[in-house]
C-alpha cells in the first residue's frame, strides 16, 4: 500500500475555500430559465450540446453579481483558470474571452478540490491513454512527464498500463459524441492540474499544514490535576484586566497625533530624506550620540520618561542632570539592570555580584534608595541570580526617577540649554541643474575572482621583492589625514578627485570615543571588545586594524573645501563622528563598496610594521592632520594605479559585528596577503600618530 495522501487537517483551514463559492455560482448558471443559454457545437461529424459563448457568460456574471465589466472579466478568468469552464477552441488559453468563442462546463468529477489533488497515477494513466489514442504522438512536456512518471511509478506501471487500456476500451462503449466530450473534459482537467511549461500553476496554494491548528497539541490524560490546572487558568483569565476598545483606540489615536510630526514618512524629514537626495545629513544629525540633537528629538523627550531613556542622547543628558543632583546612582543602577536582563547570561553571577556590591549592599558606594521589602526580595533573589532578579528593584527605581527626577529635569537649566542648542536643520537644496553631477559616484567593487587573482599576483610580487623598507613607507603613509574610501578599480584620479568631492565633510576619528560618556554605545562596546580579539590576530592580518567603524573615512573632500569643511564640521559632529562614521560605514558596507580604514584605537596593536594600508587607504587620521591631506592626495594619485584595487580590505574585525556582507571575509584575506606586497604602505608612523591623536 502506498502512503496515502495525508491531508494534514487541511479541512480545518481550507486553502481552497473559494471552490465552494465558484461552485455555487456555476450551479446557478445551470438554471434553464435564469442561467446561461447554451448552443450546440458542431464538429466535423458530431454535434455536441451545451456550448456557450464567452460573451454570454460575461453578461450573465455582470447581471447576476451586479458588478462592472472589469471585475466580471476577472471573475470569469478565475472560473476558467480553475477549470470549472473550459474553452473549446483554444484549450490552452485559460481566459474568458468576451467574444463569441465557445466554452463548456466541466463535469463535477473534474472540479478542483483540496481533498483529492490530482494524483500522479491518474496522470500517468491519462498520458498512457492519450498515447494509445494518438498513437504515440504526445507533446514534448507530456513525453517528458511520461518518462519521469515511468521511473517514479515503476512499481505501479503495470497497473497504469492495464488501467489505461481498460479505460480506453470502456470509453469505446459510449456514443461518439460523449467520447469526444470526455476527451475534452480530461484534457481540460489536466491542462489545469498539470499545466504545460510556461503556463502558471493556479492550483498551487503553497505548503500544507502539518497539524490542525485547532487541535490540542498534546492529548493529555484528563486527570484531576489537569482539570484543576485548567480551572485555575480560566479563573486567572477571568481576573485579567482588560482594556475597553474605546480606551485602547483612543490611545492609538492620541499616539498617532502626538507622533505625527515626528514620523519621517508622514511628515517629511529635515534636512531631507537621504534615500531620495543622497544627502546623509539626516542620519548624521540623528546619530545615537550626536553632540547637538535636533529640535524634534528633544521634543520627543518631553513626551514620556520612556522616550527619554530610550534615546541614548537623552539618557546622557539626564545622567548629567542627575549627577548635579547627586542621584546619578539611580540611572546607573537602572542601566546595570538592563545589562543584566539583556546582556551576556554567562556572566550573570558576576554581574549580580557587582550590582549588589555597588548598589545594594548597606554602605555601598552608590547605594540606591529602595524600600525595605523590595530590598529583601532582591537580596534573597540574588542568591540564585537570573535575568530578572533585579526586576522589582528596577521598576521601583524607574518609577522613582519618573515621578521625581524626570519632572525636575524638564524644568532644569540643563534641559533648557539642550533645548536651546537643539538645531532645526535646513532642508537641502537640490539644484536641479547640477543634479546629474551631484550624484554620488557609486563604484562597484571588483569581483572576488579578480581580487583573488590580484592577491595572488601581489603575493608573487612580494615574494620577489625583499622585506619591507620602513623608511620608504613612512614617507607615504604619514600625513594622510583623511581616509579615502576606495571602492575598486576606479581610475587613479577618481578617488581623489570626484570621490573626495562627493563625500560630505569628514568626521573625525575615534578620538571622540573616549570622551563619550558613561552611556556605552554599541560602538564603544564593540571597539572595546575587539582589541582583545584583534590582538590575537597575526600581524599579517592587521589590515583590519585600520578600519574601525568609527572611522571617518570620508575625508577626502576636495582639497580646499575639505580643510574648511573639516574645520566647520568639527564642531557639530564632534561626538557624533563615531556614530556618523559608523552609519556611513554601514551604508557603505551594505553597498559593497567602501572600505574604510580608520585609525582605531587599536592601531597601536598593529605596530607590527606589516600593515599596509594600501596607498592612501586607511590612513585615517585624526582631524588635526587634515592639512596633510593635499600632500597625501598627490601621492595617492600616483599610487592609485597599482594599489587601488587592493585596498579593499579593511573591514576590521569589529565590523563583523555589523551585518555587512560576506565580502568581509574575503576582504580580510585580501589585505593580509596584499599587505605583504604593497611595499610602500607601512603605517608605522601613522600608527604612532594615531596614538598621539588618540590620546588627544
Amino acid at each position, binding site marked *: *500500500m*502506498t502512503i*496515502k495522501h495525508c491531508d494534514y487537517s487541511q479541512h480545518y483551514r481550507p486553502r481552497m475555500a473559494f471552490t465552494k463559492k465558484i461552485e455555487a455560482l456555476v*450551479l446557478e448558471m*445551470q*438554471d*434553464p430559465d435564469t*442561467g446561461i443559454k*447554451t448552443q450546440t*457545437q458542431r464538429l466535423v461529424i458530431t454535434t*455536441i*450540446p*451545451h*456550448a456557450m459563448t464567452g460573451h454570454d457568460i460575461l453578461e450573465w456574471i455582470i447581471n447576476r453579481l451586479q458588478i462592472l465589466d472589469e471585475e466580471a472579466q476577472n471573475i470569469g478568468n478565475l472560473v476558467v483558470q480553475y477549470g470549472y469552464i473550459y474553452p473549446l477552441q483554444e484549450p490552452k488559453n485559460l481566459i474568458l474571452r468576451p467574444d463569441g468563442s465557445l466554452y*463548456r*462546463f*466541466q*463535469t*463535477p*468529477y*473534474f472540479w478542483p478540490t483540496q481533498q*483529492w489533488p490530482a*494524483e500522479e*497515477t491518474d496522470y500517468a494513466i491519462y498520458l*498512457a*491513454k492519450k*498515447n*494509445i489514442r494518438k*498513437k*504515440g504522438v504526445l507533446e514534448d512536456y507530456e513525453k517528458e512527464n*511520461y*518518462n519521469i512518471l*515511468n521511473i517514479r511509478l*515503476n*512499481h*505501479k*506501471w*503495470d*497497473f497504469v*498500463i*492495464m*488501467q*489505461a*487500456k*481498460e*479505460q*480506453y*476500451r*470502456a*470509453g*469505446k*462503449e*459510449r*456514443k461518439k*459524441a*460523449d467520447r469526444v*466530450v*470526455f476527451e*475534452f*473534459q480530461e484534457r481540460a482537467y489536466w491542462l489545469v492540474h498539470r499545466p504545460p511549461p510556461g503556463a502558471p500553476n493556479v492550483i498551487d496554494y503553497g505548503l500544507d499544514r502539518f497539524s490542525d491548528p485547532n487541535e490540542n497539541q498534546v492529548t493529555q490524560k484528563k486527570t484531576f490535576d489537569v482539570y484543576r490546572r485548567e480551572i485555575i487558568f480560566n479563573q486567572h483569565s477571568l481576573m485579567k484586566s482588560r482594556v475597553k476598545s474605546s480606551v485602547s483606540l483612543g490611545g492609538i489615536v492620541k499616539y498617532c497625533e502626538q507622533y505625527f510630526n515626528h514620523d519621517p514618512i508622514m511628515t517629511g524629514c529635515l534636512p531631507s530624506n537621504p534615500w531620495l537626495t543622497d544627502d546623509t545629513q539626516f542620519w548624521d544629525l540623528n546619530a545615537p550620540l550626536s553632540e547637538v540633537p535636533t529640535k524634534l528629538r528633544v521634543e520627543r523627550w518631553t513626551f514620556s520618561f520612556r522616550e527619554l531613556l530610550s534615546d541614548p542622547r537623552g539618557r546622557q543628558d539626564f545622567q548629567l542632570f542627575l549627577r548635579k543632583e547627586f542621584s546619578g546612582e539611580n540611572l546607573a543602577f537602572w542601566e546595570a539592570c538592563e545589562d543584566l536582563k539583556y546582556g551576556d547570561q554567562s556572566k550573570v553571577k558576576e554581574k549580580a555580584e557587582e550590582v549588589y556590591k555597588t548598589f545594594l549592599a548597606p554602605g555601598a558606594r552608590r547605594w540606591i534608595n529602595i524600600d525595605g521589602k523590595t530590598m529583601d526580595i532582591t537580596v534573597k533573589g540574588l542568591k540564585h541570580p537570573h535575568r530578572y532578579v533585579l526586576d522589582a528593584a528596577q521598576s521601583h527605581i524607574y518609577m522613582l526617577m519618573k515621578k521625581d527626577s524626570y519632572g525636575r529635569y524638564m524644568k532644569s537649566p540643563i534641559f533648557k540649554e539642550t533645548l536651546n542648542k537643539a538645531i532645526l536643520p535646513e532642508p537641502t537644496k537640490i539644484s536641479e541643474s547640477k543634479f546629474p553631477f551631484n550624484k554620488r559616484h557609486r563604484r562597484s567593487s571588483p569581483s572576488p575572482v579578480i581580487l583573488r587573482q590580484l592577491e595572488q599576483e601581489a603575493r608573487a610580487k612580494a615574494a620577489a621583492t625583499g622585506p619591507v623598507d620602513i623608511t620608504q613607507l613612512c614617507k607615504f603613509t604619514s600625513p594622510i589625514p583623511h581616509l579615502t574610501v576606495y571602492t575598486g578599480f576606479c581610475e587613479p584620479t577618481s578617488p581623489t578627485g570626484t570621490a573626495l568631492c562627493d563625500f560630505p565633510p569628514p568626521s573625525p576619528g575615534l578620538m571622540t570615543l573616549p570622551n563619550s560618556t558613561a552611556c556605552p554605545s554599541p560602538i564603544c562596546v564593540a571597539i572595546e571588545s575587539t582589541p582583545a580579539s584583534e590582538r590575537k590576530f597575526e600581524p599579517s592580518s592587521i589590515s583590519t586594524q585600520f578600519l574601525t567603524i568609527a572611522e571617518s573615512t570620508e575625508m577626502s573632500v576636495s582639497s580646499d573645501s575639505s580643510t574648511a569643511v573639516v574645520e566647520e564640521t568639527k564642531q557639530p559632529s564632534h561626538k557624533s563622528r563615531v556614530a556618523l562614521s559608523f552609519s556611513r560605514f554601514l551604508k557603505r558596507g551594505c553597498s559593497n563598496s567602501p572600505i574604510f580604514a580608520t585609525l582605531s584605537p587599536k592601531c597601536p596593536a598593529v605596530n607590527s610594521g606589516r600593515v599596509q594600508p594600501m596607498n592612501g587607504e586607511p590612513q585615517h587620521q585624526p582631524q588635526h592632520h587634515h592639512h596633510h591631506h593635499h600632500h597625501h592626495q598627490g601621492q595617492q594619485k600616483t599610487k592609485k594605479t597599482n594599489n587601488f584595487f587592493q585596498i579593499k580590505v579593511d573591514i576590521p574585525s569589529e565590523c563583523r559585528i555589523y551585518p555587512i556582507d560576506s565580502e568581509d571575509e574575503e576582504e580580510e584575506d585580501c589585505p593580509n596577503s596584499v599587505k605583504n606586497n604593497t611595499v610602500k604602505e607601512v603605517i608605522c608612523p601613522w600608527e604612532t600618530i594615531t596614538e598621539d591623536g588618540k590620546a588627544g
Partner: protein
Amino acid sequence: MGKEECKTLLDALNKVTACYRHLVVTVGGTSDSQNLREELKKTRKKAQELAVANRNKLTTLLRDKTISKEDRAEYERLWVIFSTCMEFLEVDMKKALEIGQEFPLNVPKRYLIHSGMSGGTSAVAARAMSAQNMKYEADSNIDVADLKELENEINQVGEMMVEMEMKVNVANWTVEAKQDPGAELKSTISVGASSVGMISVNEETKSACDPTKVLAGVIFCAFLFIAVILAVLVIKLS
C-alpha cells in the same frame, strides 16, 4: 495454475474499476439519471466481490512459504497491482459519494451541470457487469437511498485495505514492472485477450451492434426459410 487464476481475477477487477471510473465521471452531468446511479451501485458491488475474491486468493498465495522466488516476485507484482486498484476504487467511491450528495436527482431546483454529455452509460455498465444488457429494477429515489450504503461500503473497503496491509507484507518498491513504457501502444490494436469472452464478442459486434439490424437479418432468414418450404410444398403438390 494459481497465477493464471490470479491474473484473470485481477483483469476482471481492473476492468470493473475502469468502468466504474467512467460512470463516476458522468455523475452530476446532464447524462446523470437514476439509471446511472443504479449502474454505479451494481458496478460497485461487482467490484467488491471481485476484490474480496482477489484478496483471498492472493493472500493465501503470498502466505504460502513454499513457493519459489520467481513465483513470489510475480505474486508480489500482482499484489501491488491489486492494492493500487483498490486505492483507485476507494477514491472513486469517495468522489461518487461526494458528488452524489451534491447532485440529488429529484430535487426540483437542483440542476445538473451542462457538461455536454447526453448519451447513456448502460453499455459501459454492461461491460462492467459482463452482461449483455442492463436491467434496471431499482426504485426512483435510489440516488439518495444508495448514498448510505455507499458510505458503508467505503468504510468496508478502507478496513479491508488496512487488513491487507497487516496480513501481507509486500514492499512496493521492490516490484519491477513487466511492461515497458509505451507498451500500451503495442497491444491495443488487437482487442486484448480479455478474460471475459463476452466483451470481445460485444466489441466485435459493436459496429453492427444495432439490434434492429440483427432482427432484420433474422426475419429475412425466416422469410427465406418459409419461402423455401412453400416452394417445396408447391412443387410437391404440383
